[in-house]
């Protein structure tokens, strides 16, 4: 079966790959490109562990075909840190102990990034509903939400002082 050629941008790098039509973007990231940060928890869009940004918009990479990546700007968890230092969201997740097993964390980091890009001052309720598609079985969400609110504050300060 002829594979499809795709040229795209992943975490700022121009990336070319070959994939089969039925391979999802998640399959491509993990099995073709070797970016295993995005996780497969369900492959049906119900857990959010595979969350990525496509042209800035939050999506489940398991609900997108690899071929659809052509010409898009894709951000995965591997592309969130700012060079050699952590993004405030990552820093706050660590400070608040907002992870236990850490398997849902990559998806959450990307989902929170998308949230704070759209709204840097969410209420607790807004944050909880925005993240309803990111299942976490370890934490009960408490520390995750605290980390989100704290990271939002940092990002607002950064903007103010910029």
């Amino acid at each position, binding site marked *: 079966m002829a594979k499809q050629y795709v040229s795209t941008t992943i975490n700022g790098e121009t990336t070319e790959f070959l994939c*089969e039509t*039925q391979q999802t973007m998640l399959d491509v990231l*993990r*099995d073709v490109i*070797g*970016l*295993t*940060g*995005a*996780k*497969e*928890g*369900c*492959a*049906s869009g*119900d*857990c959010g*562990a595979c969350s990525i940004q496509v042209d800035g918009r939050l999506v489940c990479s398991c609900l997108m075909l690899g071929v659809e990546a052509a010409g898009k700007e894709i951000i*995965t*968890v*591997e592309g*969130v*840190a700012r060079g050699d230092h*952590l993004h405030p969201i*990552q820093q706050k*997740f*660590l*400070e*608040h*102990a907002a*992870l*236990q*097993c*850490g*398997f*849902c*964390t*990559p998806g959450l*980091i990307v989902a929170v990034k998308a949230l704070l890009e759209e709204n840097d001052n969410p209420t*607790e*309720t807004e*944050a*909880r*509903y925005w*993240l*309803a*598609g*990111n*299942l*976490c*079985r*370890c*934490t*009960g*969400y*408490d*520390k*995750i*939400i605290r980390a989100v609110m704290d990271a939002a504050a940092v990002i607002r300060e950064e903007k103010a002082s910029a």
Partner: protein
Amino acid sequence: MNYIDSNLKVVGTRPLRPDGVDKVTGRAMYSADTRVAGMLWGKILRSPHAHARIVKIDTSKAEALKGVYAVCSAADFPDIPSEEAFVGEGPMNFRDLAMNVMARGKALYEGHAIAAVAASTPAIADEALALIDVTYEILPHVIDVEAAMAETAPLLHADMFTQGVDPKPTKPSNIAKVVKFKKGDIDAGFKDAEVIVEGRYTTQPVHQAYIEPHACLATCAADGQVTIHASSQGHFMIRAYTAKLLGMEMANIRVNPAEIGGGFGGKTLIYIEPVAVKLAQKSGKPVKIQMTREDVFRGTGPTSGAVVEVKLGAKKDGTIVAAQQVLKFQAGAFAGSPIGPGCMCGFALYDIENIDVLGYDVVSNRPKVAAYRAPGAPITSFGVESCLDDLALKLGIDPLTLRVKNAAKNGTKTHYGPTHANIGFEQVLAVAAAHPHWNAPLPAGQGRGIACGFWFNIGGESTATVHINEDGSVTVATGSPDIGGSRASMGMMVAEVLGVPAERVRATIADTASIGFTHLTGGSRVTFATGMAATQAAEKVVDELKKRAAMIWEITPDAVEWRDGQAFPAGTNAGAFEPLDLATLALKAARTGGPVNAEVSVNAQGAGAGFGAHICDVSVDKETGHVTIERYTAIQDVGKAIHPSYVEGQIQGGAAQGIGWALSEEYIYNDKGQMENPGFLDYRCPVASDVPMIEAVLVEVPNPRHPFGVRGVGEVPIVPPMAAIANAIRGATNLRMPNLPISPPRLRAAIDQAG
């Protein structure tokens, strides 16, 4: 040495976890993240039938497919004899385990593994599975526990005769075991009682629902040596079970522990590892097996669903004088539900003179149950704590006061034998009574509930090594998979003993070939038992460092004192020397006798039992039956919190899982015995918007049997939520909801019925 009352510098603080950065940047390697060149994809064919005789398995078409390198079924595995052993978690019959990993003769539940293939791509593997031709003779099936107990029920195992009844039965049964516990004289107790309440409660099986599906990668060298990369709650468990099922020597299997994406007890068993090894042996290539979410739901173990009958008798003043329980636990397709702990935990919280508990371990055509957080305790306590609430109501006594009046204390003899020692239940109840939540006025229309929980916690075998690196930094390695941040607590205990900052100590998990045996991560044992080993290893290192300093100063080791990461002369008559720090001593290690390391193995005893009390407020939409958790507080005796954030996290996570168990999680079967909701869409775990902030209140009653006073914390928090929520719903609606989950259709129906 004991540090409980010493002035601690590291333990009790909240440093960043050592493995944190990898996990927030996507670098951490979980089971499915490992891949090697030339790797094949293994997939497993599962039974579509709940109960069927396997007449024939024809794999010829699959084997002929291009890209398929190996196919296997039960015929490829040794037919091992029935043998009880306690290698991992709970008594395990290896014949049952083998037959669960690959069905032999009969498929006992929908999702039971029948055969497996290894192919060059996942797509080819899927195609190959479709080409395997299995002839089934469909048999009548049974799903529900009481139906399975009936004389006329379809039998799963012709050779299963109920254990624990005298005389030994002559007819086989689905009842694997009967368990009885007695204390005092139950009949006299009820005669003595002035008030009696009883209830019948049911709970649904619930899945641990770790977000990481089971996965492993097996490679097999020409000389028969096998390497397995897998995440689990015990890589030594994987080695032992895989060796047993394949008839291999343990030394020929090396298991590398991948990061684990949640387990909660569900990864204390194996499902795919022997299959991956077998396929690797047959194909001569590395084989990776990765379960789908549907595989996880259909093929792996939830905890038992159950029927729980409770009868309580009390004096008017609230003294409980008689307590009786009958428990019927689903074990799934093979014997071994947590009926033992189920029978022990419910009444372990209270000082009651007369107790009678009867438990049944019952097989039916469901996946074999696996451990899930305090196995058995949440089920039994849902019944007991709900019934206690009704008793309080009938007595006109505040439900917390009733629990205080009857609370178990040090010296209370339990109905299963042990006497409680060093427990903190009274302290927990006192904190609950004084807590602002318990004393806050209840908003109109809301209900407030309280319930308590108990778990033994265990110790057991652990190994830890501490290395002083050449530059004076420190590494601690253990054999305990880190499921929730234990690397942080290991590093902190070692740092405390060495007198260095937490950041100076790196904690890792060593593979089965690189460290001594360590029992799996479960039973809330790691911070207690492995922590004990790590602490003792650090102490040995300190003794060695003192010797080295003594050698440098030419004085006797007992004239050296270790403080704040440095060696000092002990007093003036020891001589006047500049203190020697870790870096200096490490630098001189070669001259003073070589590397400074220590390894300690323990079989830790004296694990301290844990008690918790949860308070929750709910509001109920009486038109839809929808329940909202408005406020939630979880109070628990944690002994000593090494890293308080991760202790709070355990409690918050356990409470949230309990909220799902109470309100929304359940297995839905059709009349063919097939699960209808094998995915996160319709198996409804709580999402972020379903739960409020969960206030975790840490009560610290130190366990004198641990150097830092640690007692296990991971399991207690899932015990109280179901009853706490049901009790709150009763407060809001005046309805006792005895059946879980308390879903909107159930609650609306109950509201309509009450009129």
